[in-house]
């Protein structure tokens, strides 16, 4: 059997890792980069690009360059997240056949699962070249707040990419694994501050008996390193206009160069105090070429972006308050995501928690390393296996008055079976409707409906007399079975709930075939 790799399928960048001889190793891609942009594009000439090349033409080919697809995967078309993406994305988002999402690229419609699969295929290819063997399984990470549909959609993306996904794990959990925090002897509370390219997540984990429980998770899906880059771009545009009276914002060739230069300058300033942004021939007119040469200091960068850092700290503060924890309750702080390389970010987080954050693992590789460790543990002895499969969100049923009663709390390790006794709400009620929900909100309508069924044939009785046992059973594969049993008559009704990514099996099969054809194109 081949090796199982770990993949951090990120909003802006993805990273793959594998454990070899007991050590986790990040797998470089063909260009030698350790992370790959999660970007797919089709050029005017019909050439398909994935990764760095796709990113490098994003501004000059905006309609046919697809990025940040993670914000859309497993979402319904009418969700607020999709509405927001429609307002901000340069590509076209349309309604899919199952009220899900489709993205139009070069005249063809793609599901988010397919587009994620294209990125996964790149990671798989890099891994196969590196390991010199076929890779057919991967552990993939997802944000802690992903619901079952989003997780299932991520698994389906794997299937389309010809990769089985035996396990999905939460990104903060993976980061904690990368730092070996699961080996701690005592129970601890861990804050994972993840500021990536496009999103910010803060998660508070509690480690107990080898299991990481997510106490709270929050963030901003529209705040990340790219916002820092945008501030630098604005500054450079202003400087150039001041000197030459030319507006570079209207020139897409110039903007593409500014974007790359800003990102590079920002990275340089993580280790240097000052750099120079040098873009010769950024503009030209009848008088000849014009060059952009701007000295850029770390202090200037901090001045331009400190409010973005403050925004993240505000979210951290609120998250701690929500789970009624003080900074002193946090034993470990982990920094994840490339943007945390910025000294100002590390300093702000350290100051807030009053302790130095964990360092030592590249922040943009920690999640993939954790995924690889989890992947390797799948083949270890049971005793050593990491107990990581937990329900990401609570499961329960809708009850009288529009309320929601959880039966299995979130972060419960699976497999699990739990029951609860319910009764009728009105006199002589002969049937009850069981609506199976997933979520954390007290109001039933605010949670996700997974399925529903009716239990008929109850004996007529006063309200509150019949006893109906509702049981939830989740097996090791995450399949949920819900049953309702009238304890007096023995009548029983049940359903099996499987998470849906929005795609049918037939659609996934077709997409898998198409993706294989595309692979041939990519290898040209």
């Amino acid at each position, binding site marked *: 059997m081949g090796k199982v790799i770990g993949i951090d399928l990120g909003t802006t960048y993805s990273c793959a890792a594998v454990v070899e001889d007991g050590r986790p190793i990040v797998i470089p891609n063909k260009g030698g980069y350790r992370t790959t942009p999660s970007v797919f594009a089709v050029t005017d000439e019909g050439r398909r690009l994935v990764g760095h090349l796709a990113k490098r033409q994003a501004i000059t080919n905006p309609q046919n360059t697809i990025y940040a697809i993670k914000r859309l995967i497993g979402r319904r078309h009418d969700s607020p997240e999709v509405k927001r993406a429609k307002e901000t994305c340069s590509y076209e988002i349309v309604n899919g056949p199952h009220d899900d999402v489709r993205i139009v690229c070069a005249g063809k419609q793609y599901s988010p699962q397919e587009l994620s699969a294209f990125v996964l295929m790149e990671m798989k290819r890099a891994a196969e070249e590196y390991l010199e063997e076929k890779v057919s399984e991967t552990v993939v990470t997802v944000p802690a707040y992903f619901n079952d549909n989003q997780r299932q959609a991520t698994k389906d993306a794997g299937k389309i990419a010809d990769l089985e996904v035996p396990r999905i794990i939460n990104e903060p959990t993976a980061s904690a694994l990368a730092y070996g925090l699961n080996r701690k002897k005592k129970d601890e509370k861990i804050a994972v501050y993840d500021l990536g390219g496009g999103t910010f997540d803060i998660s508070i984990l509690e480690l107990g008996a080898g299991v990481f429980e997510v106490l709270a998770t929050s963030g901003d899906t529209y705040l990340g390193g790219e916002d820092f880059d945008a501030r630098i771009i604005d500054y450079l545009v202003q400087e150039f206009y001041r000197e030459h009276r030319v507006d570079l914002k209207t020139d897409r060739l110039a903007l593409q*160069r500014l974007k790359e230069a800003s990102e590079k300058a920002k990275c340089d300033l993580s280790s240097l105090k000052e750099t120079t942004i040098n873009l010769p021939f950024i503009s030209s007119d009848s008088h000849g070429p014009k060059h952009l040469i701007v000295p850029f200091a770390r202090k200037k960068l901090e001045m331009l972006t400190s409010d973005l850092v403050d925004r993240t700290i505000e979210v951290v503060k609120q998250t701690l308050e929500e789970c009624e924890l003080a900074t002193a309750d946090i034993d470990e702080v982990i920094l994840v995501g490339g943007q945390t390389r910025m000294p100002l970010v590390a300093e702000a987080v350290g100051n807030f928690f009053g302790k130095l954050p964990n360092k030592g693992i590249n922040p943009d590789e920690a999640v993939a390393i954790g995924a690889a460790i989890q992947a390797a543990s799948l083949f270890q002895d049971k005793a050593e296996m990491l107990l990581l499969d937990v329900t990401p969100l609570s499961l329960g049923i809708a009850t009288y008055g529009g309320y929601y009663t959880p039966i299995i709390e979130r972060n419960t390790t699976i497999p699990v079976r739990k029951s609860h006794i319910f009764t009728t709400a009105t006199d002589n009620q002969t049937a009850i409707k069981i609506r199976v929900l997933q979520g954390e909100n007290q109001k039933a309508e605010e949670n996700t409906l997974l399925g529903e069924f009716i239990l008929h044939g109850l004996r007529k009785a006063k309200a509150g007399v019949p006893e109906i046992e509702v049981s939830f059973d989740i097996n090791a594969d995450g399949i949920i079975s819900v049953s309702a049993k009238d304890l007096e008559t023995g009548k029983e009704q049940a359903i099996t709930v499987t998470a849906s990514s929005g795609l049918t099996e037939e659609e996934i099969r077709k997409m898998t075939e198409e993706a294989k054809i595309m692979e041939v194109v990519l290898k040209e």
Partner: protein
Amino acid sequence: MAQEDKKIEANKFLEEGLNLYGLGKFSEAIEKWKKVLEIDPDNSAARDYIESAGGDVNSVPQPAETPQPLPFADTSIAESFLREAKEFAQSGKYEAALELLEKSLELDPDNMETHSLYEMVKGKQLKNYINEAGQPGRIPVLLKRTEELLKFNLTKEAGFILSLIDGQVTLDDIVSLSGMDKFSTYRNLVKLKRLGVIS
């Protein structure tokens, strides 16, 4: 058919021929241009194109023998550029022809004949540029340091292409990344190569 309609019809066939020529369908292109000459036997552009594509102009209707006003008797500057460009194009000096055609189009942007010839010459010169640049899979390398580069009088398009050269991207990649059409990309690449900026 009214004179104006004839002109429109002829231009339509002229364009269709150019499109087919661009796709490498030379015999089909020649047929289209022959149709132009059936409508307008004096159409010199169609005649030139047929010749360029290896067709036989003698097999198509010849221009009327009645004396016609000299085409350039009352020429504008744009027309004189066009006429010179035709001569260059016929003698295979496509770069010189292109420069003149671009000047002509600046002065007379709606001239269909200039546009048609421009597209055709571009097609021919692109092949030359591709030959000069090398195989699409080759990786161009920067030969000058930034401070040396500043001495050159380059356009922002050439500057953009320079910024793409990182020792990893191929010529084919640059075409995909440039945001320009294939002709403009290769034109800039060859210009940079001739200047000794890249190899």
